[in-house]
């Protein structure tokens, strides 16, 4: 349970305040309602590149990081397909510095070519480090466009290709800023050793005079229902074969979202889960196997992935996974098993309340989804799921014509003697 108060500035900036007097720290989390899904097809990776530029200095403050570190603060940010989220933690008595910094870069960045050039290069190295110079690193570059044909989820946050990052211009940067980085498109959460009235005063002082701008309208094409099974193979210099299966499922706000999430828990959460027990421990068909939701806001993917043991082919592995998925469809699971995954949800939610930063991020995200109060009802939504729901939703998800399977083969060295 996270308690909070909310107010909205005249320019549309939403502010949520969570008081936690036990912490000596404060945190300021600002979520901008823009992610890789808002990019143009020929300029992918831009939302993330832009996130890097947010640290290259703003109108009145040449160095964001130095100014923050000088008061004992730390910060970071991440970009996903849905959102861009920035956060600061700092000693609570220096809270005003966070307001000064965040408001100045919401007001205006200091656009300069040199900053763009360096960050292009940094992001290209990030692209290589995470996606190209790692075994299996390019999986999402291959799997997303298999599963999504229309929706912009078909590219990864890092972008489709390095070229898009190389071609980003300062004009693109300015236009993106003007469109998305406006108060009405942001949610700010202030948490920790702070007081509501203090935050109100600071918010008005530093953010009050930033022009509202217009909240951009989002009109993304819906992904049409998949009609046919999709299968692809690729070959790479990896030591072990690997299998990835993506199934379409509901969006984040659909009442069945929690059901689908619990299905992945039954399949692979903890060492008593079905896939782990059956495929890794009993049959020794896989060395590792996992199932999880992408957790996207729009239409989701449920992923099942695994690496077959030595001597087990991808085809055998695939068959064994399908057998478990069919079991989810054909047999009603026991109340015991459902309670088990619900209990895990309950304890995990309690652990998530240990850190003021986690609390702030969760409030911001649920506010974006529609209402931060719904965070506090999340456990209930999971509690209400029945065994019949699990079976119904499993039957809907685990269909061949709803699946995209990527068979990631190790490249065989040629030896035909």
């Amino acid at each position, binding site marked *: 349970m996270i308690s909070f108060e909310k107010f909205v500035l005249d320019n549309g900036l939403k502010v949520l305040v969570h008081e936690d007097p036990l*912490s*000596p720290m404060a945190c300021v989390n600002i979520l901008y309602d823009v992610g890789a899904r808002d990019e143009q097809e020929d300029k992918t990776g831009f939302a993330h590149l832009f996130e890097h530029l947010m640290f290259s200095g703003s109108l009145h403050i040449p160095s964001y990081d130095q100014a923050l*570190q000088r008061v*004992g603060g*730390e910060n970071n940010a991440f970009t996903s397909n849905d959102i861009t989220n920035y956060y600061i933690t700092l000693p609570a008595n220096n809270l005003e510095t966070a307001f000064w910094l965040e408001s100045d870069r919401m007001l205006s960045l200091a656009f300069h070519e040199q900053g763009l050039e360096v960050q292009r*290069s940094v992001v290209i190295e990030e692209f290589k480090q995470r996606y190209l110079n790692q*075994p299996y690193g390019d999986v999402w570059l291959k799997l997303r466009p298999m599963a999504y044909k229309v929706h912009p989820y078909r590219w990864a946050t890092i972008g489709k290709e390095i070229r898009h990052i190389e071609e980003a211009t300062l004009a693109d940067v300015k236009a993106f800023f003007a469109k998305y980085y406006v108060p009405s498109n942001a949610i700010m959460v202030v948490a920790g050793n702070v007081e509501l009235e203090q935050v109100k005063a600071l918010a008005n002082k530093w953010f009050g005079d930033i022009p509202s701008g217009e909240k951009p309208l989002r009109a993304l094409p819906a992904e049409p229902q998949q009609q046919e099974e999709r299968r692809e193979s690729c070959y790479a210099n990896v030591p072990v074969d690997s299998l990835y299966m993506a199934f379409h499922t509901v969006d984040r706000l659909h009442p069945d979202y929690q059901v689908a999430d619990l299905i992945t828990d039954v399949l692979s*959460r903890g060492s008593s889960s079905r896939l782990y027990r059956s495929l*890794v421990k009993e049959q020794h068909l896989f060395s590792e196997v996992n199932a999880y939701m992408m957790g996207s806001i729009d239409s989701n993917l449920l992923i099942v992935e695994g690496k077959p043991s030595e001597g087990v082919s991808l085809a055998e592995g695939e068959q064994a996974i399908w057998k478990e998925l069919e079991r989810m469809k054909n047999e009603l699971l026991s109340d015991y098993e459902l309670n088990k995954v619900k209990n895990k949800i309950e304890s995990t939610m309690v652990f998530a309340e240990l850190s003021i930063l986690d609390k702030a991020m969760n409030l911001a995200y649920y506010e974006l989804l529609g209402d931060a109060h719904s965070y506090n009802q999340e456990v209930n939504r999971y509690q209400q799921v029945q065994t019949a729901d699990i079976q119904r939703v499993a039957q809907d998800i685990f269909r061949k014509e709803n699946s995209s399977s990527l068979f990631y083969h190790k490249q065989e060295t040629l030896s035909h003697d």
Partner: protein
Amino acid sequence: MINRALAPDLQAIDEITLQHPEQLTFANGLKVFIFPAEEQELIKAEFVFRNVFEGSENPVANVALGNLLKEGTSKHSSAKIAEEIDYYGAYLVPEYSFDHNALTLYTLGKHLPSVLPMMHEVLTDAIFPERELNTYVRNNKQSLQISMEKSDFLARRKFYHELFPETRYGISLTQQSLDSLDRDRVMALYQKQIQPSNAYLFLSGKVTAADLALFRQYFEAQWLNQIAIDGASFPILPSFEPGLSLINKTEALQSAIRIGKRSIQRAHPDYPALQFVNTILGGYFGSRLMSNIREEKGYTYSIGSAIANLNHAGFFTIATEVGVEYTENTLTEIKKEMDTLQQELVSEQELELVRNYMLGSMLGSLESVFSHVDKFKSVYFSGLTLDYYAYYTDVIKTIDAEQVRNIAQQYLGYEEMAKIIVGKQG
């Protein structure tokens, strides 16, 4: 109108207040440290065991031991143990480090009575079934194969071997050493290592008197020492030769770089000062290495340095992954930054910035009662007390530019370092 060019006044950063644990020793020799906290209905119970090495310094059996604890007792199978813990929403997590094996239980307080018996069973009656050991070996050989394709993994492995050759800190897992594991060896290690006289229990969260009584019931009355352990063994470290090692990967897009040397331990009076100098060099986002090599040159996504403390050694390390075409330039720039620290005085402005950053970071590191435990463990296993943090804070607050340069000269000479490149030399 507000003047946005003017920063709000800096407020002095508070010093941390650390929680002192209540300390007990059970009749069987188990040392218990209790950190009560009221906020959340959670309990964390961490059993830490000193790693025992006998005959060989190869840690392969020690690594396996922790991983296999939960894989069967004389009464319950691996599946049943997993089921019991998962059902109550608890986590039972083994963790291996260079000096310790730990087994940690995280649970809601209300489920403690339900999960504690299984934890007790695992610690007192594990049998390491042959079948589970084989599964462990097979799966770990496969994940090792994958890791060996990762440049940063190879660089780290080579780095430890350069610093601590054929010792517990320098020997890595191999396909052969995994194959050589057998049940008798793990069982023998279990009997020596997992016993109360070799253990520490760190108990934190909402621990009631009834909870403590449960711990006494299971881990005092029902847990006996089996075998006397010979005096603690020490790794014998040969003299260290700095130099460059290159592992060529012709198709690499990036080179993983590791640079470093053995260094002082936490109990050394210079340790906090060295932490300060390390922070300037590569210990935070605004560090000189990050500013130069990422934010000015764009050679990398990330570069950082750290000092680390082990029971029998310490080390300093720089790590990064850079575009292969920048490998040579990166080494040149790293050398330049290290030379500058040894030759020039740090400005007052940078001193103040790093000082405040470190004080703020210390304050922020005490997020929950669990962080208080971590702070305590760090000093306890170095033979120090919580007073160390007052000394640390004092050093951070008073260190000056001359001292920074002296420390850099004494501990951070580029020529004294091992340099590892995995990728291309450029």
